């Protein structure tokens, strides 16, 4: 049966999610940061983690967002095929929600148009980047994930030859984290996509960041790879904010997709410790 969902609800929910994502750090991230604090041997690293936790506490009072960079808004939709959107354009409803959320939540507008020329701020943080997946059912799931520029800039894509194998990918991911150093605001979460095509591998690398921090991939082979990369990354010495220590990453999340017989694409998308995403099912 077809179920109607009104665009005005979508707008108000997107606005709410933008604000909540930017002020309230997820319990999974907080737990991972506290665990890291307990295990971090570097005194400077400990002090940095203490301040990150203190910052989350201040932000949760709802006056100051976690980070001044409240990101480019990335929105993931899982749209049930039985849903009928009424009241206007779905995407425009989402953009309106972003406008409202960023205005009312005192969030920074960080989007410019004409990327290689005038770079004029659009003034309302739109357009959001929207990824839509059509799924069975009559529900609409909306995930809002504001992504900061500093960590997004530390992204990498490589079209491997299949001969590079598992080890080739692991070595490369570790190298990507190493050369990113302090730039993406460690401790980080490393999103890795393996397989698919150029756009699919980068998309799954980003989606990997939405998984609860530290939750292993359900496939034991992938989970083992995640653990191996995490161990190696945390031996790099970069540490919290790059000032030295063993907590360079809180987690490594890998997602895979089948690929062409000639290919083995891989992508790395790094998430800073301000790992913000909130979701709702309508």
């Amino acid at each position, binding site marked *: 049966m077809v179920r109607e969902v009104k665009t005005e609800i979508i707008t108000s929910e997107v606005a709410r999610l933008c604000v909540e994502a930017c002020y309230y750090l997820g319990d999974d991230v907080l737990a991972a940061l506290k665990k890291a604090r307990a295990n971090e041997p570097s005194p400077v690293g400990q002090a940095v983690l203490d301040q990150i936790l203190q910052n989350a506490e201040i932000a949760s009072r709802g006056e100051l967002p976690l*980070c001044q960079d409240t990101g480019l808004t990335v929105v993931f939709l899982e749209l049930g095929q039985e849903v009928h959107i009424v009241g206007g354009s779905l995407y425009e409803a989402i953009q309106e929600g972003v406008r409202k959320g960023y205005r009312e939540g005192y969030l920074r507008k960080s989007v410019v148009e004409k990327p290689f020329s005038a770079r004029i701020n659009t003034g309302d943080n739109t357009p959001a980047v929207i990824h839509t997946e059509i799924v069975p059912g009559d529900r609409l799931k909306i995930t809002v994930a504001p992504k900061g520029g500093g960590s997004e800039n530390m992204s990498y894509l490589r079209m491997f030859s299949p001969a590079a194998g598992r080890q080739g990918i692991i070595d490369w991911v570790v190298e990507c984290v190493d050369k990113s150093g302090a730039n993406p605001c460690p401790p980080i979460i490393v999103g890795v996509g393996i397989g698919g095509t150029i756009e699919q591998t980068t998309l799954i690398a980003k989606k990997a960041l939405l998984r609860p921090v530290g939750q292993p991939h359900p496939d034991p082979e992938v989970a083992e790879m995640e653990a191996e990369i995490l161990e190696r990354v945390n031996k790099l010495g970069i540490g919290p904010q790059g000032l030295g220590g063993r907590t360079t990453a809180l987690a490594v999340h890998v997602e895979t997709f089948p690929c062409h017989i000639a290919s083995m694409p891989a992508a790395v998308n790094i998430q800073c410790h301000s790992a913000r995403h909130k979701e709702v099912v309508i």
Partner: protein
Amino acid sequence: MAAIEITTPLTDEVIEQLHAGDNVLITGTIYVGRDAAHKRLVAALDAGEELPFDPRGQIIYYMGPSPARPGRPIGSAGPTTSYRMDPYAPRLLEVGLKGMIGKGNRSQPVREAMQKYKAVYFAAIGGAAALIANSIKEAEVIAYPDLGAEALRRLRVEDFPAVVVNDIYGNDAYEMGKAQYREVDG
């Protein structure tokens, strides 16, 4: 480790006593500019025009705040990644800028310019933006208001927490910290 309290403007005597890895608390006036403001500052210098502020002895903080709520001087105010200002920084150091606050590594030309002109690069904690906002007491836009979050600002800070990353002796706190905890070759 106890923090070293410093006040702006910075003198050579103060710069000389700062070493990579030192914690500092900065009090006084600092200036705020990031990508777009730097582009304009350097364009002004190239055109032989006067800058909107006298850079001699001053600190520039690489930052673009979130909007201030009523009753607050500023919104959240953490550092942005510094390497994007590397193409512009030596030019400002040349005309007397003494300090930069940001996060992440600087290029070799910037590090050399810091040694040459006696300037220091500090890191603030990226993503601790709400915490940092508490040390900012006043803020005003002094130029380029059309840039919004990227406008040039003047702040009055009290006990603004930062770490010395690059000192005038060629040391780098990121390299030092990493070397201490690194368990891999190369």
